[in-house]
C-alpha cells in the first residue's frame, strides 16, 4: 500500500487548569491518495485536534507528519479545511467573491497569472458543482445554513488542493439538508481526484461517506481500530449491509 499521507506516533497534550491532559496518544495512520477517510469518535476524543495538526494549524508535541515522505511544517493550500461554522464565509463578500477568494489564492500560490474572466469562470464552475450558480450575487447572510456550507464547500474545492480536511462540516444543519450535502459530497469526490479526511461523531455519516473509518476513543485520544468500508457508492441508508456496519461500529465505539 502506497502511503501518501503518513502520521507517525503523534502525541499532543493540553495544559488545563488542574493537570496536563493527553489529547492524542501515539497516533499512527496511513492515508492513501484520493481516499475518503473518516475519523469517527465521541466528542473530546481529539479527532478535531488531529485534523488541526494535519492542517498545520497546530503542532504535535512529538511524532511525524509526512506527505510523500516529506515533513509537513505549516498550513498550506494543499490541505484546505472546511469548517463547521457558517461564519467561515466572509459576510462582506458575495457568494461568487467568496469562491474567487480561493481561486485567487490558489493561482497566486502556484504563481499562475489568471485573468479576471478566468478567475470568475473557475469560481462559477465550482459554484455550479455545488448547484449554487444562481446565487452568485447573494451575500452569505441571505442564504440558509445548508447553502452556506455548500458555498464553503465550493470555496474549498476552488482552492484545488489535493487534500480536503473537513471538521464536521454538516454538524450545524438539519438532518434532511445534511443528507443532501452528504450525497453531494460523495458525488463530487467521485468526480474529482481528491483525498478527503472527514471528522465526525455521527456513525451513519461515516458509514455513508467513507472508504475507511478510523475509530477513536476518549481519554486519552487513541485509535481503537480502522475499519474498511467497501460498500459501493451511492450507498443506501436502508440497506442491510449499511445497518450491519453501523451496528458493528456502534458496538465498538460504546462498549
Amino acid at each position, binding site marked *: 500500500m502506497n502511503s501518501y499521507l503518513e502520521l507517525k506516533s503523534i502525541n499532543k497534550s493540553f495544559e488545563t487548569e488542574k493537570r496536563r491532559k493527553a489529547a492524542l496518544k501515539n497516533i499512527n495512520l496511513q492515508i492513501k491518495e484520493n481516499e475518503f477517510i473518516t475519523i469517527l469518535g465521541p466528542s473530546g476524543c481529539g479527532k478535531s485536534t488531529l485534523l488541526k495538526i494535519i492542517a*498545520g494549524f497546530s503542532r504535535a508535541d512529538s511524532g511525524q507528519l509526512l506527505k510523500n515522505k516529506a515533513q509537513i511544517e*505549516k*498550513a*498550506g*493550500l494543499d490541505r484546505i479545511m472546511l*469548517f463547521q461554522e457558517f461564519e467561515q464565509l*466572509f459576510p462582506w463578500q458575495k457568494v461568487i467573491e467568496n469562491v474567487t477568494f480561493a481561486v485567487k*489564492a490558489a493561482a497566486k500560490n502556484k504563481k499562475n497569472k489568471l485573468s479576471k474572466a478566468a478567475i470568475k469562470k473557475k469560481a462559477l464552475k465550482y459554484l455550479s458543482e455545488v448547484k449554487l450558480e444562481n446565487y452568485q450575487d447573494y451575500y452569505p*447572510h441571505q442564504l440558509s445554513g445548508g447553502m452556506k456550507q455548500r458555498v464553503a464547500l465550493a470555496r474549498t474545492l476552488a482552492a484545488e488542493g489535493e487534500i480536503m480536511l473537513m471538521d464536521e462540516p454538516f454538524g450545524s444543519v438539519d438532518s434532511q439538508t445534511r443528507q443532501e450535502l452528504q450525497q453531494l459530497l460523495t458525488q463530487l469526490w467521485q468526480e474529482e481526484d481528491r483525498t478527503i479526511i472527514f471528522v465526525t461523531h455521527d456513525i451513519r455519516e461515516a458509514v455513508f461517506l467513507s472508504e475507511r473509518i478510523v475509530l477513536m476513543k476518549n481519554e486519552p485520544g487513541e485509535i481503537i481500530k480502522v475499519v474498511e468500508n467497501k460498500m459501493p457508492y451511492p450507498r443506501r441508508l436502508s440497506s442491510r449491509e449499511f445497518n450491519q456496519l453501523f451496528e458493528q461500529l456502534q458496538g465498538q465505539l460504546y462498549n
Partner: protein
Amino acid sequence: MGNKYHQRLIWITVLALIWQLTALSGIFSEMIFPGLDHIFLALIESFKDGTLVKQIIFSLSIIIQGLFLATAAALILALSSYFSESAAGLIDTLTALAHPLPGIALMPLILIWFGSGRTAILIVIIHSVLWPLILNLSTGFNSIPDIYTLIAENYRLNKLEFMFKILIPASLPYFISGLKIAWARSWRALISAEMLFGAINSLGGLGWFIFQKRVFFDLPGVFAGIIVIIVIGVTVEDFIFKKIEIRTVKKWGMLK
C-alpha cells in the same frame, strides 16, 4: 426608520412649541431666552451676508482633514498593535494615558508648540479623535472570529492581504462606530478650540461665529450658531453614516 423620523419631527415640534411658549410667557427677559422668531431671523441674517457659509466650510474642511489624518494614524497604530506585541504595549499605554485627557486641557501646550493657527485646531481634533478610534479599531481587530486567522493561514495570505481582505472588512462595524464617535468628538473639539483660539486670518469657523455673537451680546445669534451645529451633526449622522452603514455592514448582515 420612517417612523423614527416621524417621531423625531413630532418631538422637535413639541420642544419648539415649549420653547416659544416659554419665551412668550415673559418669565425670562428676551436677552436670556430669545424667541424662535428672533433666532431664525438671526440665522437668516447670518446666511445672507455669506460669512456663515464660509465659516461652515472652514470648520468642515478642518474636521475632514483632522478625521482623515486621525483615521490613517489610528489604522496604522491599531494594525501595528495587532501584529506586534511590543507595539501593542506601547500603544495601549499611550491610549490609556491620552484617551481620558480632554483636548482643551492641552490648549496651553498646543499654543506654545503650534501657535493658535489652523494647525493648533487640527491637533486638538486629532487628539480627541485618535484615541477612541484606536480603541474601537483594536477591539474590532481582536473580535474577529478565530476562524478567519485560520483561513488566512490556510490560504497562505500574507500580512498585507490579511489586513485588507479580512481584518479591516471583518472589523468594519467597529470601524464605523469608531468613526461615528470620532465625528461627534471632532465636532465638539473643533467648536471649543475655535472658541478658545479665535479667528484665523479673516475667517474663523463656527466656533468663532458663536464666540463673535457672544462678545457682541447677540444671544439669538449664538442660538443660530448652535442650531447650525446641531443640523450639521444630525445630517452627517443620519445621512452620511446611515448611508455608509446601509451600503456596507447592513447589506452584509453584519449589523442588524
